[in-house]
């Protein structure tokens, strides 16, 4: 390499004069010569200094001069690009990027523009070969700058370092900016003053969590809450005759529970609690059971009752008030929460619908009154959801119950209205509305539980609340045990010696330890306690660049940075003890060890941070929460959540089972819920066809459903989340989707759109179809070079509406969607299945694209020319031996690109 550069330099010097002559000659056509004198001077100065500066050979220069320099010389500089040089200093990153771009444009046939003179195939091939050779020879692998932790890495690092698994960054914490589609790319991770302030604030917060400021015992008080001092939300309670009635055992506290408004515990302690309650219009004999829990007042009112600590179950045997007194520990910020445990009704889909069904079966009049309330005029297409809320609905219902002329003609179980009503009772919003109305039936007729009064007296003594308990545990973790007789200095040094390497993710030298010890010592000198100094140390360690930055090793990536890279890549967390130990012993960079560790850390669940974080950035599903689908699509928030989960499950399945890359495009399974598949993919899996293979766990009920390969359903391109993320919630834009697929699936990003062309505004009157609108692209030669690649891909996806539902007609115009097109290589496309089969046949395009995205995510830099070549080799080799996705990830980890800083 060094020898080559030397030779190049000599040749460069030798050639420089002729180049000037030739350039001058060319310049006679349109330029004044003095530019050339200056240029000559510059060129020779540079060639003397740069070892990587190489002349452009004559044949290459001729090709450039004939086809490129008319527009891209110093005078014209079209698109800010100047390719007119005597020689190129390949050592400069900017130069490499410029010529890489030139290579791309020439290779893809975008340049020279169609209306200009075109080089012969041989000329183009010669130019490309020359660029390829120089780029490969002169592009070094590596080059990620030292980078601060991304916000997500920062959060998970704090979680790991302090063992605070639920730690969340404070509201208002600055966001990372996105760079090349990812928020963890080194160049995008800038440290700014507001971010530094946020780090300092978090450091203070963590220090306070471990060493909370001392608290003083407040004086004991007695506070009483009667029925009118209680919180009433939705139809959870009603005050009748000086008692608060509770009627539902629903899970969400704001639907079923009540709690005092002004009884917040200010200091954790032991308290004496007195509660009195009675039965109200009971219909059965046994005791009613009143649940008394301790709720955090700041917790969401949507919380489920079960998450709060149960203090007591009170038996209420009679309609005369019963009183109980008990002692309980109540913690700062808590108050009492009351729920009638064995109420007749629940706000719970299946139970509520069942409750209603049984009642309808028993009582036709009851059924008729409900039909009247929910479907005025017997019209089941019009549901009166807005008015049937709480007391408002009850007034309509109770009037109907008393109406002697109530229409009973539909009051049979098989009637359409009844079926619809029970469907509503079993649906998301409908159940809550109907159940809230039903609460009022119980308020009026019973049975209900009467709450009369609650009293809290105390604190009788101080106790450690969750905050103090956590602090105690964290302190023990942070300091370890002090040996008998150990001085503050010695003990602190021991703490730092063990903690700093964890915090900084690498060994820490004596001098650094002493610097931090110095902070503690200075603090003691000014009269502060041992704990104060620990608090101060934590505040300072967490704002050190050694904590905030990665890739700080002096030269090449070392074992520790490699440990961090592997760990943050696969787990989004700092390296664990085992990795650090392997790094210390120098074993991690051993290919076998590195591979074994990668396998150990490989995500296994759809909920793993890497799966969620990578897919949401790669596939832009991070946009989903921001996209608000137009109501016409009937796509609920819950469905958006399922759509996101589909992608995560799908990705995790292919990764963990090492399925072939082609399964990303055309798999034989799909992860979704049967309901979602029916509603959004018009797909009903037959019972016996459901795979018996274990599906990965899912709270939302996603299952692995079998599908036919080769169909339109299944694979990334047909997933609701992807199609939603590539639209805007209202309409689809074939160009945007086309570009998205080229960038994120095919890895052939088209050059940016010309600046002087306005964006196409959809025709809201529907007179023209998108295809008619976009015809201009393919008619105009200068547009066509890119749009012949973009538009076919975009149009073939037009059958997916803005939330990924299949459609046959364009909205508004009502014209049949024409999704046909031709790929640049001549492949005809009729619909998405053709695009999928083309991708399966040419899967390396996709693999290369995904591999580059993974590498960007893993290394924090966009792979350069040479690195992409290495990835290409890996993709091809992986294809040859089964094309498993996990194998690909492992091969990427083993690559030089991954292992270089």
């Amino acid at each position, binding site marked *: 390499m060094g020898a080559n550069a030397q030779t190049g330099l000599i040749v460069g010097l030798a050639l420089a004069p002729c180049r000037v002559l030739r350039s001058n000659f060319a310049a006679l056509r349109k330029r004044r010569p003095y530019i050339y004198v200056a240029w000559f001077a510059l060129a020779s100065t540079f060639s003397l200094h740069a070892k990587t500066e190489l002349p452009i050979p004559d044949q290459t220069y001729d090709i450039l001069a004939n086809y490129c320099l008319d527009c891209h010389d110093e005078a014209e500089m079209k698109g800010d690009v100047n390719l007119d040089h005597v020689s190129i200093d390949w050592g400069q990153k900017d130069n490499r990027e410029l010529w890489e771009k030139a290579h791309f444009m020439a290779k893809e046939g975008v340049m020279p523009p169609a209306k200009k003179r075109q080089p012969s195939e041989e000329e183009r091939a010669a130019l490309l070969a020359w660029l390829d050779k120089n780029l490969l020879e002169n592009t070094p692998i590596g080059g990620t*700058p*030292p980078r601060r932790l991304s916000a997500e890495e920062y959060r998970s690092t704090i979680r790991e370092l302090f063992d605070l698994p639920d730690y969340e960054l*404070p*509201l*208002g*914490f*600055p966001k990372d900016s996105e760079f090349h589609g990812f928020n963890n790319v080194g160049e995008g991770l800038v*440290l*700014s*003053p507001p971010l*530094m*302030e946020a780090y*300092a604030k978090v450091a*203070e917060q963590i220090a306070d969590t471990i060493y909370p400021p001392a608290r003083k015992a407040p004086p004991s008080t007695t506070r009483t809450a009667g029925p009118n001092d209680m*919180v*009433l*939300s*939705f139809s959870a309670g*009603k*005050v009748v005759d000086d008692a608060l009635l509770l009627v539902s055992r629903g899970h969400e506290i*704001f639907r079923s529970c009540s*709690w005092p408004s*002004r*009884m917040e515990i200010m200091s954790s302690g032991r308290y004496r609690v007195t509660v009195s309650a009675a039965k109200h219009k009971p219909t059965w004999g046994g005791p009613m059971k009143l649940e008394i829990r301790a709720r955090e*007042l*700041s917790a*969401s009112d*949507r919380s489920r009752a079960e998450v709060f600590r149960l203090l007591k179950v009170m038996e209420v045997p009679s309609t005369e008030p019963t009183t109980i007194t008990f002692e309980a520990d109540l913690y700062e910020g808590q108050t009492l929460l009351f729920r009638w445990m064995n109420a007749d009704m629940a706000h719970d889909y299946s139970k509520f619908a069942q409750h209603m069904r049984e009642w309808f079966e028993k009582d036709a009049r009851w059924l008729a009154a409900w039909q009247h309330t929910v479907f005025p005029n017997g019209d089941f297409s019009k549901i*009166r*959801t*807005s*008015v049937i*809320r*709480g*007391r*408002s609905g009850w007034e309509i219902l109770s009037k109907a119950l008393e109406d002697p002329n109530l229409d009973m003609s539909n009051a049979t179980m098989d009637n359409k209205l009844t079926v619809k009503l029970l469907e509503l009772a079993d649906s998301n919003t409908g159940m809550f509305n109907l159940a*809230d109305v039903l609460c009022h039936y119980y308020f009026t007729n019973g049975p209900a539980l009467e709450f009369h009064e609650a009293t809290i007296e105390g604190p009788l003594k101080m106790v450690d609340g969750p905050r103090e308990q956590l602090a105690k545990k964290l302190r023990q973790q942070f300091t370890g045990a002090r040996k008998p007789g150990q001085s503050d200095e010695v003990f602190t040094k021991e703490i730092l010696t063990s903690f700093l390497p964890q915090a900084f993710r690498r060994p820490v030298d004596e001098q*650094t330890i002493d*610097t931090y010890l*110095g*902070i503690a010592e*200075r*603090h003691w000198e000014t009269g*502060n306690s041992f704990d104060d100094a620990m608090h*101060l140390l934590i505040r300072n360690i967490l*704002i*050190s*660049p050694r904590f905030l930055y990665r*890739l700080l090793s002096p030269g090449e990536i070392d074992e520790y940075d490699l440990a961090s890279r592997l760990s943050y890549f696969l787990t989004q967390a700092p390296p664990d003890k085992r990795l650090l130990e392997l790094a210390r012993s120098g074993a991690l960079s051993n290919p076998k060890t590195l591979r074994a560790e990668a396998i150990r850390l490989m995500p296994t669940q759809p909920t793993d941070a890497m799966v969620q974080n990578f897919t949401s950035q790669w596939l832009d599903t991070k946009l989903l929460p921001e996209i*608000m689908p*137009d*109501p016409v699509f009937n796509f609920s928030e819950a469905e958006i959540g399922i759509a996101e989960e589909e992608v995560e499950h799908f990705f995790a399945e292919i990764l963990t089972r090492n399925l072939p890359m082609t399964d990303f495009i055309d798999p034989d399974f799909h992860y979704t819920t049967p309901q979602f598949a029916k509603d959004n993919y018009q797909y009903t899996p037959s019972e016996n066809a459901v795979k018996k293979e274990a599906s990965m766990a899912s709270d939302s009920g996603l299952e692995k459903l079998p599908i036919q390969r080769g169909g339109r359903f299944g694979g990334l391109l047909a997933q609701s989340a992807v199609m939603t993320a590539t639209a*805007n*919630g*209202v*309409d689809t834009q074939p160009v945007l989707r086309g570009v998205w697929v080229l960038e994120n699936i095919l890895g052939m990003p088209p050059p940016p759109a010309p600046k002087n062309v*306005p*964006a196409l*505004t959809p025709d*809201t009157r529907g007179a023209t179809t998108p295809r008619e609108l976009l015809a201009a692209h393919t008619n105009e030669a200068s547009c066509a070079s890119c749009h012949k690649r973009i538009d076919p891909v975009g149009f073939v996806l037009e059958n997916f509406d803005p939330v990924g539902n299949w459609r046959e007609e364009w909205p508004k115009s009502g014209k049949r969607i024409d999704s046909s097109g031709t790929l640049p290589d001549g492949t005809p496309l009729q619909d998405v299945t053709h695009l999928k089969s083309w991708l399966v046949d040419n899967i390396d395009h996709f693999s290369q694209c995904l591999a580059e995205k993974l590498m960007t995510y893993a290394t924090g830099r966009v792979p350069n020319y040479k690195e992409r070549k290495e990835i290409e080799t890996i993709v091809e080799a992986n294809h040859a031996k089964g094309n498993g996705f996990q194998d690909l990830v492992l091969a990427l980890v083993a690559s030089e690109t991954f292992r270089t800083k």
Partner: protein
Amino acid sequence: MRNQSAPPGISIIGRRQFLRSAAALIALPALESFPVLGAAKAAAGSTKKAKNLISIGAYLGWHQNAFYPKEVGRGYKLPTTLAPLANHQNDFTVFSGLDHRAPNGHGAWSNFLCGNTPKAYSMDQVVADQIGQQSRFPSVQLTAGTGEGSKAMSFTKQGIGLPMTQRPSVFYKALFMSEADKARMEYMLRSGRSSLDLVLDDALRLQKSVTRTDGEKLEEYFDSMRSVEKRMERQISQINDPLPTTDYKLPDSDPITPNLLMEAEVLMYDLMALALDTESSRVLSFFIDGLGQVFSFDGVPLRSGYHGLSHHGNDPEMIRDLVSIETAHMHCLNGFLNQLKEKKRPDGTSLLDETIVLVGTGMGDASRHSNADLPTLVAGGGFDHGSHIAIDSNKPDAPLLGDLYITLMQRLGVETNEFSNASRNMNQLFS
């Protein structure tokens, strides 16, 4: 033109550009066609200034029919919701027909202060970044209720939602620090500042150990630390400045349960008046949340929870109950306006004259989740009040809510001619 459900994206840019060019085309005379009384005075060169901005947003909106007066211009009959403000009719202006042409739905609520793009740089933060630094708290975000509804009303330039303070006691402690709090703050500042030198020594040593390029990248760290250091030093130098004191006392416990929403509002208004009077802050935003809580007025519980009532489906009784809640909010606001008006300056002007109070919402009609036609009221700020300014948003040259915001910002000394999708102002109609 009026495309309510247009999402963020290219179509918006197209429309925004259209609006800009339309604005350029119509020139000023067209504005005179607005059905407005008192629009004749073209007050383009108004030199009046206001000092403070209070932005109040109600999560579940304001029922339009009860908020908008039937008549246009001066001397209108007060509509139900505004009835509590009777004593101040000449201290505020009601606007109808304004909005940001933003997307619909609860999710886009933040268009209230953010304009056409929810979660973009909000108007109050634009103002705070310009004039906020002159006071102890450059900007303050408060909420009555958990704030769960919208999560944030104010957004930084970077689009980060700012957290809101829900507990009056927390805001009170910040405004009127106890000796113990002050001592703790001083301890934190001094200990933090003096240890910083050692951390920086270590950081410098680190910088020297890495390559030159990598070391240059670390300059970002040192720049940021210098800014933290400066802030600490400024705070230390001010630590002995006298803090405002007050006789005002808060109740023993914070009214943070949902049924005590009005009580929380009253306390927050009291504290905001104190904050303005003591010049502790100039820019405050106040979010009024709304969930399922059932309010009782005169001992009678309403027909449904607040949120349920907002989905009234045009049922008159549901609307009546909803409006009774909104009227209660206005009672609380009335108390605030009273306080601002009572606090007189030596020159006879009141705190209200120096303070723009913007009352609005990000939701025009909660029953339909529509974010068009946002009920808006502006009090104080030295404007010529007393009118109902009705905008016909169907007219192609109709001003946007953002145009009103430009007028408000200019009054506060922020030199700007644009906000979100707006690039005009309403100085001709409102000055």
